[in-house]
């Protein structure tokens, strides 16, 4: 009889549920994909129902339920923070204590009630794991490695903000930690906030902004904001941060240090924001590299697993790999709090005697991160027919060939195939694709399809076997969590920026794949193998046949502020609202020019909040 463990993360951001069967993930999804509220923090009722339904189980079939953090310990940290901030934390105390007093400290009971309300059978025992243990478990137990160093870096869970673990077989041993309020994740979030982006959401924008700037504030950050020791351990100077008091990340101290008030959201980006982004990115990379070296020293391992929100900083991940601190690095694709649901379930499963059957195969146990819902061609056909939506049905090879031809001709394609990705990245299941060779693709996709800021670069997918022709990437990057330099051979010679500055730099074609080459010649690469995503692999093969290059622009299937699409009708709506030319919806190909006129009573762009 299979042993099912359900993991849940909730009530902070990115709620999720994950189901593990005999130690292997079989289904996982973020709640936002069902409720259509980005970073939804509510109890993941839809995600729980989906994961159980995926394997035809009810709660009665589940052996144990694991919550991803320790609410009592977290409450003690919150109380200590009130004491540490007094007498300046009244607003935070008044805003947050009632929730903690009534529900958050008893979150395990709350989850029991919520699960009972789903009417999916008897609720089994619910336990909790610590926040960083959940991260560490999500990174190590599904990694391909028999043993490894594990480094977790995030904002904060209970107390720990940075931890190093030693993973061996089915055991994880905690070694050392840095505790709140000293947090690399919160340092990065403070700059995210100061540069006018949303905390817990806009950090990847700050990372994308960094290459436009010069790190002229890096010394100031090192001198005033963070004391980083040679072993990577650090402390922040809390006189410059406001988050102990609860309401905002930064205040007057930060403003004095960096020459004025924070940038208002959506205001024009200036040289200061570019340089602040470059500076905090540089300091973060320095700290992460030192942390990685310490992880190696403490464990003696030659392989590293990464998780926690800071592990989504793919530039820093790329630096770890480029520095050859470890022979191999594996990053959990759902490295943020959503992945905590999976980690908590895995930790409990291992305690219950599960094994790691995938170790020794050279593969991880994440199934390409394709752990979300799939919709059969019958379901899609029923939707299309009911809506009177024109389509053509094609065999997989013909579909790949036709889509490849369209991309080669400069068309933008919505690609909706198979199971949805778990984690923040679109990996070729819910993706919008475009021609990486065309210098216009970047601006067309940013402004006419994604409706997002023009400074943001796009990322490439490439056949794993072709990656070395385009990128200096010494290992696979199946989850698009590693930034690597574009290979010299793929760069254009004689590129002149002609006095351009800021976001205009992105308009200069710097390589044979300009749509995915950032201004510093870097790219956030996804390498694709057949075993991880056969349909996407087939498409890239067809593209290579068509153009000689298997590199494609791959961005998430959504518009700015909206969660990635989950269901066929969401994909069709996004297709019709934007300038996407074709939609490959399972085995069906839809052309924009064949579609009936799209009508909506309200302007949908006013309904989707900006991220």
């Amino acid at each position, binding site marked *: 009889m299979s042993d099912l463990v359900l993991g849940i993360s909730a009530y902070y951001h990115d709620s999720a549920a994950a189901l593990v069967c005999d130690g292997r993930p079989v289904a996982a999804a973020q709640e936002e994909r069902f409720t259509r509220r980005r970073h939804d923090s509510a109890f993941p009722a839809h995600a729980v129902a989906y994961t159980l339904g995926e394997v035809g189980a009810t709660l009665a079939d589940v052996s144990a339920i694991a919550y991803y953090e320790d609410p009592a310990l977290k409450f003690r940290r919150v109380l200590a923070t009130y*004491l540490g901030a*007094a*007498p300046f934390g009244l607003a935070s105390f*008044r805003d947050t204590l009632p929730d903690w007093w009534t529900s958050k400290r008893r979150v395990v009971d709350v989850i029991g009630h919520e699960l009972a309300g789903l009417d999916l059978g008897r609720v089994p025992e619910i336990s909790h794991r610590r926040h960083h243990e959940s991260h560490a478990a999500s990174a190590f137990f599904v990694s391909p490695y028999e043993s490894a160093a594990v480094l977790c870096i995030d904002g904060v869970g209970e107390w720990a903000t940075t931890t190093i673990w030693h993973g061996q077989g089915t055991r994880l*041993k905690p*070694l*050392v930690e840095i505790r709140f309020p000293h947090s690399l994740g919160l340092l990065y979030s403070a700059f995210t906030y100061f540069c006018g982006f949303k905390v817990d959401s806009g950090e990847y924008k700050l990372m994308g902004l960094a290459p436009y700037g010069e790190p002229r504030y890096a010394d100031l950050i090192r001198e005033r904001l963070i004391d980083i*020791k040679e072993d990577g351990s650090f402390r922040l100077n809390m006189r410059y941060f406001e988050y102990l008091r609860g309401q905002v990340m930064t205040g007057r101290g930060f403003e004095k240090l960096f020459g004025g008030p924070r940038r208002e959201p959506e205001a024009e980006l200036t040289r200061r924001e570019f340089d602040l982004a470059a500076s905090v990115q540089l300091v973060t990379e320095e700290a992460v590299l030192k942390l990685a070296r310490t992880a190696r020293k403490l464990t003696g391992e030659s392989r590293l697993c990464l998780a926690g929100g800071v592990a989504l900083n793919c530039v820093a991940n790329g630096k770890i790999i480029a520095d050859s601190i470890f022979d191999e690095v594996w990053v959990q694709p759902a490295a943020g709090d959503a992945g905590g649901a999976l980690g908590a379930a895995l930790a409990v499963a291992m305690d219950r005697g599960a094994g790691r059957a995938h170790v020794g195969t050279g593969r991880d146990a994440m199934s390409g991160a394709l752990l979300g819902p799939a919709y059969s061609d019958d379901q899609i056909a029923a939707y299309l027919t009911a809506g009177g939506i024109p389509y053509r049905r094609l065999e997989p090879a013909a579909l790949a060939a036709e889509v490849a031809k369209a991309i080669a001709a400069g068309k933008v394609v919505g690609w909706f195939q198979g199971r949805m990705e778990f984690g923040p990245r679109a990996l070729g299941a819910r993706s919008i694709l475009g021609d990486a060779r065309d210098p216009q693709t970047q601006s067309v996709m940013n402004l006419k399809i994604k409706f997002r800021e023009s400074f943001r670069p796009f990322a490439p997918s490439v056949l794993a076997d072709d990656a070395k022709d385009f990128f200096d990437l010494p290992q696979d990057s199946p989850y698009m969590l590693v930034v690597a330099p574009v290979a010299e051979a793929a760069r254009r010679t004689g590129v002149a920026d002609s006095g351009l500055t800021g976001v205009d730099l992105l308009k200069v074609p710097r390589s044979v794949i300009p749509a995915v080459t950032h201004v510093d010649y870097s790219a956030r690469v996804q390498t694709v193998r057949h075993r991880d995503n056969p349909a996407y692999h087939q498409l890239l093969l067809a593209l290579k046949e068509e153009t000689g290059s298997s590199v494609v622009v791959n961005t998430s299937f959504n518009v700015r502020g909206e969660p990635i699409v989950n269901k066929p009708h969401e994909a069709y709506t996004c297709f019709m609202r934007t300038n996407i030319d074709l939609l490959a919806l399972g085995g069906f190909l839809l052309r924009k020019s064949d579609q009936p006129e799209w009508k909506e009573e309200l302007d949908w762009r006013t309904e989707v909040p900006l991220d």
Partner: protein
Amino acid sequence: MSKFLLTIAYGLLVVPAGLVTRVLRDPMHRSWSRRRKSYWQNSAG
């Protein structure tokens, strides 16, 4: 819990307790030490 009661509780309980606690030992460990070689703490597990 009303905002008024919370404000009273903050003023009468949290502020004095916080100030006393910080005199004895800062729960946030805010001080920097240039002489210290490391800020790591052992994980209790």
